[in-house]
């Protein structure tokens, strides 16, 4: 092979892309508009797919390419489209209106990232970066931070669509942890997870529509008001 893979270079590339995913996640937590939020979410899978492809390239693990292509197609293209359609159909207000205001959300997300780093520190091996097998192990901290910020966004938001978005970004964290620690799960498991996500988005889309019809609002905190 003419293009000799240098694991050191791959490691740097993966770190850079993982950091970008994290920045996008914090941007989602701190951004004000729903449609922009969906678009930011749509960029994340591109980076995740590139990380998966890079790990696959350096470890000669072709099944990771499938995972990368599936991520790109489903989470990068299909799911954002579906969500934008839901938003248009329901015609909700564009502003997200979280419980904690945006700048504070961004700072809380920063704090959660710190927590993620502290949790993942015991798995951190700085000198193992040279071997292709350990490629991307250091992104575990990023993956943990992605979960935590995803959870925070779910708690912080009132409307059902924004909570779906938070759930999906949390799932991105899971994907990152899976590919960076195990070089990807078996393809059957991956496929299962992807279709799960797709079905979840579709079901939630319908559910959002029903909530809207029943309560004239997207605010899930109104779900405790029963109608006779």
């Amino acid at each position: 092979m003419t293009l000799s893979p240098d694991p050191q270079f791959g490691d740097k590339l993966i770190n850079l892309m993982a950091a970008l995913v994290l920045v996008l996640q914090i941007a989602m937590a701190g951004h004000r508009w729903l449609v922009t939020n969906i678009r930011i979410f749509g960029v994340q899978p591109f980076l995740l797919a590139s990380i998966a492809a890079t790990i696959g390239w350096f470890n000669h693990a072709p099944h990771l390419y499938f995972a990368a292509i599936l991520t790109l197609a489903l989470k990068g293209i299909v799911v954002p489209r579906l969500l934008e359609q839901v938003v248009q159909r329901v015609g909700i207000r564009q502003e997200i209106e979280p419980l904690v205001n945006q700048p504070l959300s961004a700072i809380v997300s920063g704090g959660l990232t710190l927590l993620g780093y502290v949790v993942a520190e015991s798995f951190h091996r700085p000198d193992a970066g040279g071997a292709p097998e350990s490629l991307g192990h250091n992104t575990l901290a990023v993956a943990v931070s992605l979960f935590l910020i995803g959870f925070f966004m779910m708690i912080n938001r009132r409307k059902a669509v924004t909570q779906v978005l938070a759930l999906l970004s949390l799932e991105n964290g899971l994907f990152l942890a899976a590919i960076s620690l195990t070089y990807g799960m078996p393809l059957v498991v991956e496929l299962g997870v992807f279709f799960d996500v797709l079905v979840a988005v579709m079901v939630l889309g319908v559910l959002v529509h029903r909530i809207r019809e029943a309560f004239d609002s997207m605010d899930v905190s109104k779900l405790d008001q029963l109608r006779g």
Partner: protein
Amino acid sequence: MTTASLLPALMQLALLLAIAPLTGGVMRIAKARFQTRRGPGILQPYRDLHKLLKKGMVIPDTASWLFGAAPYVVFLSSLLAGLMIPMVAADAPLSFFGGVLAVVYLLGLGRFFLALGGLDSGSSFGGLGSSREMTIAALAEPAMMLAVFTVAIGAGSTNLSTVAHAALGQSWRFFAPSQMLAFAALLIVLIAETGRIPVDNPATHLELTMIHEAMILEYSGPYLALIEWGASIKQLVLMTLLVNTFFPFGLSPAWAAGGLPASLVWYVLKLLLLSGVIVLIETTNAKMRLFRVPELLAVAFVLGALALVSTFLF
């Protein structure tokens, strides 16, 4: 100071004084072209300075000596800060005097006196502008310090010449997430500190939401020229800090005649590129409401904090 080190200092001084208004002129004309206007000539800032220096001054009756002292402090502090950063060679002429902390707080001193000058004029606009300027400065400073510490940890020193030498030694250092995040944080701080569009509009003093222009509304003639020149030097200093610590390509390691011309060309190219980025941000964004500015700076703060954390992780 020996004569050997005096020559670089004089050269850098001349460069600072000459290039600073030009950078502003280039940005102004690039912005005009983006908006399909013709724009003023590239030398317009020089003409403005020349005109202002010839004019007489009107000084408010309520003003004390502070009103007259502020322009000199603003001008000299930014000039001094400019001599402490590497411009075309990695060895800055006054780098023995202090590192990046001294640069940041010299600029802070200039801003403090400008705010005092604005208050001293006794007009309500001056006070308004000063209060806004200090609010933004207080929010931008933590973000800036976090980003600066990230760079300093990467190089093992807060001395900018050491930082530049270290950056020259490590190729592809920009690939590290910490450097990239610190760069993003510093870019937001640069926009806030130099009063560019999402934060403040540099082109007008006719808006009620103006910040920098409100502070200097009572200044005229040579004092105004000094303040404007000082502001453009401050902008150049911050831009140089950004391009030379993060992209040190082409920076000559020492003040040797051989490497300087190439280094100067690289420096101008990098400045033009950064100006282009800033102009692009200015034309594609609308000015923020004043109460939204803290949100932008909170983002810069989080980016800076992430940069610092990821220094220890990756």
